[in-house]
């Protein structure tokens, strides 16, 4: 049979083959070039984006001791929806739990975070558990090991100023500062952790991994071309002396109050004690929430950083400032003296003076040493009523205000931790308003002796000492000396700037310092004497009041002491406040003096004094009462609100019953009781 007849069918087949090839190529073009969906699908399926969290910077004291470090802990996390059937008994035996507990925890995870999201199944695995799970984790689909870095406070000191980190909250996420954060990220909440968040956190890295069909990461994607390195956070070096801080916290046991020590030469904070304090490790790790709320409810308010948040009248410790202003304004000279027989009568009503000895206000030096109230009330009035003010007393009081403001009072200093309070210095407008424009220097005369309308934080008081020690200038008190070894880091710029307090003459400071040295040498602060160290200080005993059981009651005086040392070359300026503890010389002065000795000599020779201070307890019962009164009020209000609701319901029911009875009675002649 001849095949010529069907020869053209060869062409049919050729065309069929070419056509098929064309269809396939068109399909390929469609899938590979035109359609992007497969690329996205492939990427989603095979590439994992893994965020690499950098090591958070640690915090070191002036001697290189770490006060805040990192500890790695491993958690076992579970994504409930991915959990498949496997031998749970093996996992349970590794973790040491029962299978019922296992089921329970899975259910809990579902409720807590939803079945699609990963929740912590067991926190803080032991090294042994971790090692066994590392090997076998792929036998337990749905489970994964999550490393996390915990903050650790090796010395257990400085809880309030070091601060703590926690998961970022929603409010913070909405602010611009934290706009790059995601829910679940950890962030510094308070203290240095918060202020230096940007420096401590480092830069997050991203790694892209290719995974296989079993979900196991296999290889870096595109040989790591898209990856970014995690850059570890910077370490902070503090001025803090960890030993001094620990010693201060120890001295403050059983007391309420605070102590601040500053290096006047740099403004560096050497110690900041706020008592009662707590172990900062309580706010790291799993029990943060629980511990926080128990600290929050403590009547002694340990979370309240008294060093920068408590505002006290400075009392007699303020007298050197009054003297400085008086000298600078020119209303007195260092030799100015006056007679005082135990009271100031210039304003009619007597203002008591604890010293009745003749000649205790013979000149400025002696007046400071004996803490004569009359003398400083008088100076205050001289300042305000001075003839040199064109605008009279109004201008006088405003000038007084301006002086105090330039001493760093009445406003936040700008310390590098969060939550600083302003204190209070009234200006002219304040008094105009308070006294309806009818006032004279007698109305606020006690300001001259640091009482009345003036409030300062211990931090501000310590800064006043630094100013006097420096004879007229200060640096904003701050903790951080260098960031990652860089002392000129942009975040530290404002702390390198020298602040001059107006133009007060050096002679004025010399006179005041002489007086303050006399306070310690043979005045009210003799207890603060340190063998071989010239200390200049000033005691204070501050009256304070609160409302107990509806009555304004005078509470025990605050014991206050401010000082600096050594006089010839000041290295440390200290302010100490012990609340409701009595005379300044009883508690505050010894604490300040012991801290100075500890700092300058690193050994304390006066062990008897040390022992007395350590064992003393000055916490008064009314602290608890004051707190419980507040709490009782809150409780009552809550109860009342609930009771109201119930009463309303009861009333409504009563009304309904009455209506029914009325209807039955009126329309159906039925009597029901």
């Amino acid at each position: 049979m001849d095949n010529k007849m069907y020869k053209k069918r060869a062409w049919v087949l050729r065309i069929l083959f070419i056509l098929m090839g064309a269809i396939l190529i068109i399909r390929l073009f469609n899938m590979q070039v035109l359609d992007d969906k497969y690329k996205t699908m492939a990427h989603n399926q095979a590439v994992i984006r893994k965020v690499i969290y950098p090591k958070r910077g640690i915090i070191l004291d002036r001697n290189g001791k770490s006060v805040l470090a990192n500890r790695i802990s491993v958690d076992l996390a579970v994504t409930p929806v991915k959990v498949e059937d496997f031998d749970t008994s093996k996992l349970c035996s590794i973790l040491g739990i029962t299978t019922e507990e296992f089921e329970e925890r899975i259910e809990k995870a579902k409720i807590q975070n939803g079945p699609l999201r990963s929740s912590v199944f067991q926190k803080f695995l032991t090294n042994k558990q971790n090692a066994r799970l590392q090997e076998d984790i792929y036998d337990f689909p749905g489970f994964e090991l999550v490393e996390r870095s915990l903050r650790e406070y090796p010395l257990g000191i400085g809880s309030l100023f070091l601060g703590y980190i926690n998961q970022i909250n929603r409010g913070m996420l909405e602010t611009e500062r934290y706009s790059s954060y995601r829910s679940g990220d950890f962030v510094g909440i308070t203290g240095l952790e918060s202020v230096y968040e940007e420096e401590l956190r480092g830069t997050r890295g991203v790694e892209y991994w290719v995974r296989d069909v079993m979900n196991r990461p296999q290889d870096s994607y595109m040989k790591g071309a898209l990856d970014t390195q995690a850059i570890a956070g910077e370490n902070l070096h503090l001025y803090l002396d960890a030993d001094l801080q620990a010693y201060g916290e120890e001295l403050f046991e059983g007391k309420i109050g605070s102590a601040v020590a500053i290096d006047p030469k740099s403004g560096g904070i050497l110690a900041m004690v706020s008592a009662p304090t707590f172990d900062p490790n309580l706010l790291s790790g799993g029990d943060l929430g629980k511990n926080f709320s128990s600290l929050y409810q403590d009547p002694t308010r340990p979370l309240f950083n008294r060093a920068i948040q408590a505002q006290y009248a400075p009392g007699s410790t303020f007298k050197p400032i009054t003297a400085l202003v008086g000298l600078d304004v020119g209303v007195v000279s260092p030799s100015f003296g006056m007679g005082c027989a135990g009271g100031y009568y210039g304003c009619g009503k007597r203002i008591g003076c604890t010293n009745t000895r003749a000649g205790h206000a013979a000149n400025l030096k002696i007046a400071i040493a004996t803490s004569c109230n009359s003398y400083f009330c008088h100076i205050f009035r001289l300042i305000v009523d001075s003839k040199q003010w064109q605008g009279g007393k109004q201008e006088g009081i405003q000038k007084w205000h301006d002086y105090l403001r330039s001493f760093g009072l009445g406003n936040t200093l700008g310390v590098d931790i969060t939550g600083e309070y302003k204190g209070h210095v009234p200006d002219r407008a304040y008094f105009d308003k308070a006294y309806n424009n009818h006032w004279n220097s007698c109305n606020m005369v006690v300001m001259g002796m640091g009482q009345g309308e003036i409030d300062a934080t211990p931090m501000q008081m310590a800064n006043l000492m630094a100013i006097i020690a420096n004879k007229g200038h200060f640096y904003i008190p701050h903790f951080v000396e260098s960031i990652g070894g860089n002392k000129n880091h942009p975040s530290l710029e404002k702390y390198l700037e020298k602040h001059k307090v107006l133009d007060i003459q050096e002679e004025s400071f010399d006179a005041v310092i002489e007086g303050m040295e006399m306070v310690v040498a043979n005045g009210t602060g003799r207890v603060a004497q340190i063998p071989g160290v010239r200390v200049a200080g000033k005691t204070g005993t501050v009256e304070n009041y609160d409302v107990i059981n509806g009555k304004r009651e005078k509470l025990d005086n605050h014991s206050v002491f401010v000082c600096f040392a050594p006089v010839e070359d000041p290295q440390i300026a200290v302010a100490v406040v012990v609340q409701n503890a009595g005379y300044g010389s009883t508690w505050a002065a010894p604490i300040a003096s012991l801290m100075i000795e500890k700092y300058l000599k690193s050994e304390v020779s006066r062990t008897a004094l040390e022992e007395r201070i350590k064992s003393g307890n000055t916490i008064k019962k009314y602290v608890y009462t004051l707190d419980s009164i507040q709490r009782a009020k809150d409780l009552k209000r809550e109860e009342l609100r609930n009771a109201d609701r119930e009463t309303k319901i009861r009333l409504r029911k009563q009304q309904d019953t009455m209506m029914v009875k009325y209807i039955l009675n009126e329309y159906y002649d039925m009597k029901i009781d």
Partner: protein
Amino acid sequence: MTHYKKNLLLRIDWLTLLLYLILVGIGITAVYSSEYSSLNQEFWDFSRSHTKQLTWLGISLFVGLLILLTDSKFFYSVSYLVYVLGIILLLLTFVLGGSVKGSNSFIQIGGFSFQPGEIVKVSTTLALARFIATPELDYSLWKNRIISMIIAFLPCIIIILQNETGLALVYFSFILVMFREGLPSGILIFGIASIALMISTLLVEAIPLLIIITAIAILVSFLNRKALRNNKIFFVIVGIAWFVAVMFSQVIVPFVFKNVFHEYQVERIYTMFGQDVPSEYLKPGSTPSQDAEYNVRQAKIAIGSGGLSGKGFMNGTHTKYSFVPEQHTDFVFCGIGEQFGFIGSSILVLFFVMLLLRIIHLAERQRSTFSRVYAYSVASILFFHFAINLSMTMGLAPVIGITLPMLSYGGTSLLSFSIFLFILVRLDADREVLIR
């Protein structure tokens, strides 16, 4: 016989062999790169697929050499014998066969498993060629046509019984040979048209499909306008075909899918193509199953993610990390598509088309009918494998286990295609000789 060259080497069609070697080379590259590999593995590790495949290539080339050294008349004379032997071998698998992945079509010899169905393709081809080349055979008689069909489809039936449907379907490619030898063209047209209509009904949306069908009808009428003028019946046939096609794709399938089939049945049909079920066939409130046929979905992702120029050699994330099942056997093309992209894949397709056209060219220059029919059989079988395998990896055809010739991992497959081609080349070397 003026052009007859004495030297066998000069008579061999080297182009065919070159294309063969290129394709095998691409195949081994794909198998090597798509194998799950941790770093630091030896290339010459004989437990790995690509080295096994290289071994099979060695065996194939050796067998090929033997074939080239054999007299071309030998293949003619043993064709019926090997056909019978092949059938016996197929039947033997029922007795000796070990089950590999649910099919009973393998025989285990040592470490290698061997699939007689692959080899029987060769013997069937020889027998079919021999029958059609029988001197004075009138292939226009239905008796002879039916005998040829029995020869072609007897192994097919046995293989279906072995549960290896894909392999069995390959035997339908002999229809193309028979068409070339005189089977009425209507059968071929009808067959291809039906398959095309069924697949496009599933893959193309209703309105575009209506336009395409209508366009084809108009085009066919236009091309045959002379015949139309003389023969009204042809016009009626085109009209009926158009009507049936439209009814089928626009009315019957939607109606059946909506009202007759259960949802899972509809889903099954779509998932064979790796497609999601169109929303109109879903009952309200039910969610479509997320995993439409996993293989095809993954294959499509792997190929599609290759882009224009691919992810680069050894950078195929999907094939390397076992996302695509069967990625070095049936879905070997995924590795090419992912690593070498559109450019690489198209070149591969072009190589195949070139080989197919070359084989037709060889077929048409044969003096003996035996060689011609044999060559067409080779072309048809290769074409069927190539078209169906690539279509199924791209979701254009349902997934039936059919290998990609020369490329897929699998010794028997490589060996059988090698034997096919080497016999073809050997016969072609004697194209001036009347083999009978």
